[in-house]
C-alpha cells in the first residue's frame, strides 16, 4: 500500500497509509476498536475504493476492473471475523466447493480440492453437515477451508482467534503454521491480542485513528511507549489483577 487515503462519511478517515508485506511472512495489524483495521483489509481486497493512493498486490496494481479484481481475488483468501457471514451453503462440502466451482474447475478437481481442504482443517467427518449445527471454532475452520480450496497466496484474517477456546486456538495456529510452511502462504491478520503479536507475528503495524503509529518488529513495537499507551500492556493489566 502506498500513500493510501480513504474517507467514510467524513466521520472516519485513513490518511497516507503505506506498508509492505514480505512474502511468506506473518503480519499483524492492530489498533483499538474503530482504528481502521477492518477498513484497511477491505481496501486491500477492493471491497472499498480508496480516495487516493495505490495498492499493489503480487506485482499488479489494484484497479476497479472486474476481471482484474477477480483475478487478484483468486490469490487472496479473506476470512471474515464472523463465520456466519461466510458460510451460506446447505452443507460444509458445498460451501467449501463454492469458490473452486467459481474458478471453473473440473468437477473431479473440485472434489479433490474440497477433500484436501476438509482434511487440512480437520473437518472431514463434518463434510455433509449443515454449518448451522457446528460449533464456533468448527465454523471458523470451515470458512477457512472455503478459502483454501482456491489455493490463495495471501491469507487475510480478520480477528482469527476471537471467541475461540484455547484448544481451538491451538488447532487454528497449527493449520496456519502448516499453510505457511507447506504452501508458502503470506498471512495478514488483525488482532487486539498482544500475545499473538508478540509470539506469532513476524512484523506488526499499529493503527490509531486511521494513521500508522508504528510499523516494525513486534519486540520493538510492544516496548514503544506510544504503542503501549494506545494498546495497553500486560504489565498494566497485571496491576489490576492481584490474587493476594
Amino acid at each position: 500500500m502506498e500513500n493510501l487515503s480513504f474517507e467514510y462519511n467524513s466521520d472516519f478517515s485513513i490518511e497516507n497509509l503505506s506498508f509492505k508485506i514480505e512474502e511468506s511472512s506473518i503480519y499483524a495489524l492492530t489498533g483499538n476498536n474503530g482504528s481502521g483495521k477492518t477498513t484497511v483489509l477491505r481496501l486491500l481486497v477492493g471491497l472499498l475504493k480508496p480516495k487516493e493512493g495505490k495498492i499493489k498486490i503480487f506485482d499488479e496494481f489494484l484497479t476497479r476492473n472486474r476481471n482484474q479484481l477477480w483475478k487478484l481475488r483468486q490469490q487472496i483468501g479473506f476470512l471474515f471475523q464472523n463465520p456466519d457471514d461466510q458460510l451460506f451453503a446447505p452443507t460444509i462440502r458445498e460451501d467449501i466447493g463454492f469458490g473452486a466451482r467459481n474458478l471453473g474447475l473440473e468437477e473431479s478437481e473440485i472434489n479433490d480440492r474440497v477433500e484436501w481442504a476438509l482434511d487440512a482443517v480437520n473437518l472431514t467427518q463434518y463434510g455433509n453437515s449443515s454449518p448451522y449445527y457446528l460449533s464456533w471454532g468448527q465454523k471458523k475452520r470451515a470458512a477457512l477451508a472455503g478459502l483454501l480450496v482456491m489455493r490463495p497466496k495471501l491469507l487475510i484474517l480478520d480477528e482469527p482467534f476471537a471467541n475461540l477456546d484455547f484448544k481451538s486456538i491451538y488447532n487454528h495456529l497449527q493449520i496456519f503454521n502448516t499453510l505457511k510452511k507447506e504452501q508458502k502462504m503470506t498471512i495478514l491478520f488483525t488482532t487486539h491480542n498482544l500475545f499473538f503479536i508478540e509470539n506469532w507475528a513476524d512484523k506488526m503495524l499499529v493503527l490509531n485513528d486511521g494513521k500508522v503509529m508504528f510499523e516494525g518488529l513486534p519486540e520493538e513495537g510492544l516496548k514503544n511507549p506510544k504503542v503501549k499507551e494506545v494498546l495497553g500492556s500486560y504489565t498494566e493489566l497485571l496491576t489490576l489483577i492481584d490474587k493476594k
Partner: protein
Amino acid sequence: MDIELPFKHETEKNFLSKIHPLIRVFLPFILVIPFILLYDVYLVIAITLLSFFLNLAFNLHPFKILSKIKALIPFILLITIFIPFYVGNTVLFQLNIGITLNIYQEGLTLALTLFFRIFGAAFIFMTFLTSLTYSEFIEALTKLRVVPPFFIGSIVIMLHYIPILAMSNKKVLDAQDLRGKNFTSYWQRIKAHAFIMGKNVVHNMERSEKLYESLKLRGFSGRITFSSKKLKLVDILMVLLFLSIIFALIYFIHIKQIQIEVFQLFIL
C-alpha cells in the same frame, strides 16, 4: 425451540432419494391433478388417505409432515367454514343463535371437499418437499431454468438467515426474561416479538451485505452453483409412470364404484 427448515438431513435416505431432485419438485404438480379434477368428497378423502398410507409404507415420516402442515389448518378452515351457510338448498341443520342460520347439505359437502382438496394437496407437496435435502432443493430450482439465478441466490441467502434470525430472536427474548420482563398478555408477547423481529431484520440486512461481500470475494457473479446430479432415463420414466397412474385413476379406474363395493362388502 429452534426453527428448522422443512428439508431432510443431508445424510438421511428414503425411498424418494433415488429420484432426481428436479423430478421430486415436479411430481407434486402431477399428483395434485386429482385434487383439481375430482369433485367427489369421498374420492378426495380416499386419495388423501392413500397418500398417507403410502407415506407410512415408504417411511417418509407422515406424522412429521402432518405436524408441519397443521399450521395451515386454520387458514383452510377460514376459507371453508362459511360455505355451508350459504351454498345449497337442502337444509341439514338449523342453528338458532338469535338469528336462524341454515346449514346446507350441499354447502357442507362442498366445504369438506374443498378442505380435503387443499389439505391433500398440501400434504403431497410437503411430502415431496421434506424428501429433499436443502442442497437438492436448490439444485432442483437451478435445474428448472425458469427461476432466475438472482432469485435462487436470494432464496439461498434468505434460507440461511431464517434459523439465525429465529435464534437471535429467542436470545433477545431470553435476555428480557432474565431481566424480569413479564408478559401478562398474548398481545404483549406478539408486540415484543414484532419489535425484536424488526430490529433483527435490520441487523441481518447488514449481515447479508457482508455475506454478499464474502461471496463476491469467492467469485460470486449472480449465479450460485452447487454440485449436481444428471437427469437419468429412469427419472423421466418416473414422471410418465405417475402421469399414467393419475390418468388411469381419473378416466379408466372407477374409484367411486370400487369404494361403494368395498363399503358394501363390509356393511353386508
